[in-house]
Each structure stands twice: as structure tokens, then as C-alpha cells.
């Protein structure tokens, strides 16, 4: 097989398949979003132009879900990054032997490789008001009992904690891998200059590993937009609509109880646009960062 043949035989089919996977759902969703289609009614689909989109921005429940998604995104990204930036240096400095570091690394990636559904049930069991171990621990210091997931004010923070448990530890593990790669000479030189630990990390270590950790933060952001698994198992969007994110609301409208497929399609197109804007901005910023 010549170079040219190899190129076409192995590039074109895959690209075609991937384009089909991307464009077909996208255009179908756009098509439905411009119509009025309700699974509960028998009348045929009617073209209504941008009607669904206009309705969306007057729908208080949609605007609420936008707000919840935003809070979830900010809470989980900020929480995970903060955890990683604090824990990674601490563990890196405390566990100095290779074996101990590997053991910690392993313990930290375990929460993240587990199914989100599994993680959600673990914490639902621990959050339980009557048999949960967290309330037991609070009761030891005469606090509680708290009904974490059924309380509109506590539910979202409680869910964010679980996400940070998975992602904070994963980011910590990844940053430990990066810290391991910092050459010893750099650290020795800094020590000779009399820098203390805080200066060492803020001025030398963090800037060195930042180019490789920024893409991770970006991945975490995109991951935080897809919270369905978690929230479905923990609260299904409740109590009321206190934890109803965008994808959860679109699910209820289109596939769950309501059956308004076209309205849900409009919401999903809105999410695609949001993600594209997000990805493009982050991708450009990352490339500029790498070039400078």
C-alpha cells in the first residue's frame, strides 16, 4: 500500500463516521427545535420558527436551571482546583518515598475511576438523615441532624461536595505527577537562595506546572456541564427545582414526564452553542498560552 492510499483508506471513513455522529444529531435537533412536537399529543408536528427559543427565555424554570448549572460549574471547578493546589504540594512534600507517593496516588485516583452513579449512592447513604454516618459524626459534637439532600439550601452544596471528592482528588493526583517531574536542580537552587516552602511553590513550582495543569482545569469545566448522572441519583433535581441543572430540566421536558421533545431539543441546541463558545475561547486561550 502506498503512502497516499494508506492516507485515504484510514482517514476518510473515520472522518465520515465522526461527521455523521456529530452532524446528524445536531441537524435533527435543530430541525425539531424549530417545530412544535409533543409526544403526548397525536397532532402532527407544526413549524413554529424560533418559538421554542423565545419561550425558553421567558420560562422561569429554564432560567433557574441555567443559574443552577452555573453555580454547579463554579462550585465544582473552584472546589476541585483549590483542593488540588493545597493537597498536591502537601502530599508531595510529606510522602517522600516512591512507594508512599504511589500509594497516595492510587488512593486519590480511586474515587474518580468509580462510576458517578456509584459515587452518588455512596454519598446518599452517608448523607442519610436517619442511618447516615455523616450525621452520626455531627451528632458526636452535638450538631444536626441535617437533611442534606432534601433541604433546598443544603442540597446543591452537598452535591458539589461529592463532585469535589471525585475531581479534587483526581486533580491532586495529576498535579502530583507533574510535581514529580520538576528537576531537583531547580528546587536545590531555590533552596540555596533561601526561599521558603510557600515561595518555592507560588513562585517556582506552580508556574512550572501551570501550562500542563490548565488544560486539566478546562477538561473539568466541560465535565461540570454534564452533571445528570449525579443529580438524577441524588435528588433528581429536587427538592422542588433547587438542584435542577440544564440537562436535568431538558430531560424532564423532553424525555421524562412532559414529552415536549421539540422544546427539549431547543434547550439542547442552546447547550451546544454554550459549549462551542466555551471550548473555542478556552482552546484559543490555551494555544496563545503555549505560544507565548
Amino acid at each position, binding site marked *: 500500500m502506498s503512502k497516499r492510499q494508506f492516507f485515504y483508506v484510514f482517514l476518510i471513513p473515520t472522518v465520515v463516521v465522526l461527521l455523521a455522529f456529530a452532524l446528524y444529531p445536531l441537524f435533527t435537533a435543530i430541525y425539531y427545535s424549530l417545530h412544535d412536537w409533543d409526544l403526548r399529543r397525536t397532532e402532527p408536528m407544526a413549524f413554529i420558527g424560533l418559538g421554542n427559543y423565545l419561550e425558553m427565555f421567558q420560562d422561569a424554570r429554564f432560567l433557574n436551571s441555567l443559574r443552577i448549572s452555573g453555580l454547579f460549574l463554579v462550585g465544582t471547578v473552584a472546589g476541585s482546583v483549590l483542593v488540588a493546589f493545597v493537597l498536591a504540594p502537601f502530599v508531595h512534600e510529606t510522602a517522600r518515598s516512591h512507594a508512599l507517593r504511589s500509594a497516595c496516588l492510587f488512593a486519590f485516583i480511586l474515587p474518580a475511576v468509580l462510576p458517578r452513579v456509584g459515587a452518588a449512592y455512596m454519598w446518599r447513604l452517608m448523607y442519610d438523615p436517619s442511618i447516615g454516618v455523616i450525621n452520626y459524626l455531627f451528632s458526636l459534637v452535638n450538631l444536626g441532624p441535617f437533611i442534606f439532600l432534601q433541604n433546598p439550601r443544603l442540597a446543591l452544596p452537598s452535591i458539589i461536595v461529592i463532585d469535589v471528592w471525585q475531581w479534587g482528588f483526581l486533580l491532586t493526583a495529576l498535579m502530583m*505527577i507533574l510535581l514529580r517531574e520538576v528537576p531537583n536542580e531547580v528546587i536545590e537552587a531555590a533552596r540555596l537562595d533561601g526561599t521558603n516552602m510557600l515561595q518555592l511553590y507560588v513562585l517556582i513550582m506552580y508556574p512550572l506546572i501551570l501550562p500542563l495543569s490548565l488544560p486539566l482545569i478546562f477538561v473539568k469545566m466541560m465535565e461540570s456541564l454534564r452533571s445528570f448522572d449525579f443529580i438524577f441519583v441524588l435528588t433528581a433535581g429536587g427538592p422542588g427545582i433547587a438542584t435542577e441543572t440544564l440537562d436535568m430540566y431538558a430531560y424532564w421536558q423532553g424525555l421524562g414526564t412532559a414529552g415536549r421533545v421539540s422544546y*427539549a431539543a431547543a434547550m439542547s441546541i442552546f*447547550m451546544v452553542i454554550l459549549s462551542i463558545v466555551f471550548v473555542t475561547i478556552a482552546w484559543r486561550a490555551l494555544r496563545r498560552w503555549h505560544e507565548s
Partner: protein
Amino acid sequence: MKRINLPRILSYVVLAAIVIVALAPIVWIILNAFKARVDVIAYPPRLFFTPTLANFERVLQIGTISRGLANSLIVVPLSLLIGAIFAIPTAYVFARYAFKAKNDLRFFVLSLRFMPPVAAVIPFFIVWLQLGMLDTTPGLIITYLGITISTMLWLSIASFQRVPIEYEEAAQLEGLGSLGVFLQIALPIALPSLIGMAIFVFILVWNEFFLAFVLTSRQAVTMPVAAATFAVMGMEVPWGQLSASIAVLMVPPMILSYFFMRYLPSIFGLRSEE
């Protein structure tokens, strides 16, 4: 006499506490899977109890769970295998050939990974509904190919870029064709890191919930869907059985996590521990 280093001991205590926070929820649900009902609902929660296998026996008798397990064991390897056939040679093309649309195509592949599942699921739902393939294993496998092909393609490019190009050039001089160079030189050298990549994608697809939840209902349910939904049926959550089903669900990712850990450095382009 050696003096006791108090700050050092203190930092080890804190380290131990951090590790406990990371592992406690996992250990806790596994313990609950082995508890009899009276131990599960006991308050204060019991750390010590007589273990029983009753929950596992009961759970594996539930049709949904055993079907979910069987389906997952078919759906996940198949979507991985078909995905690899599409993705791996194409990744090699991306790594070794220069062409005009390369950067745009790479960005496109990456953006697929970040497409919100809810946007993809509604059209897929409609298509499978119209073709009568809702709640079927083939329907789910085809849907998953969108995930496996794009993710495997994106991650494999780096594996091939790390293959020393001199080996390939030498083989070419000896008269090996492009397919031969790929199959006999590049693929074997990249294999360890490709296996790491495949393990990562296996975990990803094994854990997938949302698409399977929407596109299957009875016959084609996967393990995460089965484990998550059988508890919703009753009013009171049967925590012992639920814990057992979650424990079963967690077995493959837990086994693979060690290999996943060794693969991790290579996502930064660092050498993985092979």
C-alpha cells in the same frame, strides 16, 4: 538519642486523614454490601458486624441486575473494539501525515468529546424509536461508537508521535509498504500506551449512565442503569442490596484503576510507567 520530630509526625497524621477521606466512602459502601438488614439500619452506624453474602445472592437474582451485567459485558468491549478499528489507524495518520485540514479536524474530534450528551441523546432517541431499535444492544453500541472513536482517536495520536520515526524510516528503506510500517513497526511499539488508552476508555464507557438510561428501558439496560434504577421502584431504599449492586458495578473500574494510574503520566506527554 534521636529526638522525636513532632511536625513530621503531625504531617503524617494529616496525610493519613486525607487518604481516609478519599477512601472512606468506597470502603463504607463495600462494608454495607456485606451487612445483614439489621446491621444496615442500625444507629449508630456499625463498623463491626457479621458479614453475609445474602445481599449479593439476592441482587444477582434480580433480573435487571444480571441482565445489566451481561449487557455491559457485551456492549462495552464491542464498542471499544469497533472504536479501536476506526480510531487507531486514523490516529497514526494524524501523527505521521501532514495535511491541510489537520488542525481543524483535530479540534473537531476534541469538540465531539465535549458535546453535551443531552444534545446527542434526543436525536438518537428519535432515530432508534423510528427504526425500532430503542432498548436494543446494537442501538446502544452504535451510539457509544461516537464516544469511543473520538476519544480513542484523540488519545492515540500522542502514542504514535512518541514512536521514534527513525525505526519507521529504516523499515521503509528496507522496502516495507505504508501498511507494513504501521502494522509491523509503529503499532507494536505504541501498543503498551495504546493499551493504557483502551483501559481509560473502557472505564469511561463502563461508567456511562445518561445515554444508556435514556436509550434503554428493560432488555438492553447496562449495569450502571440497572444498579441505579432498581432501587427507585420501592419506597424505602434497600441499602444492603443497593450497596451490593454498586459493589458489583465497581469491580471492573477498581481492578483497572492500577493500570489507569500507570497510564496517567502519558496524558501529559510524560513517559508512562510501562
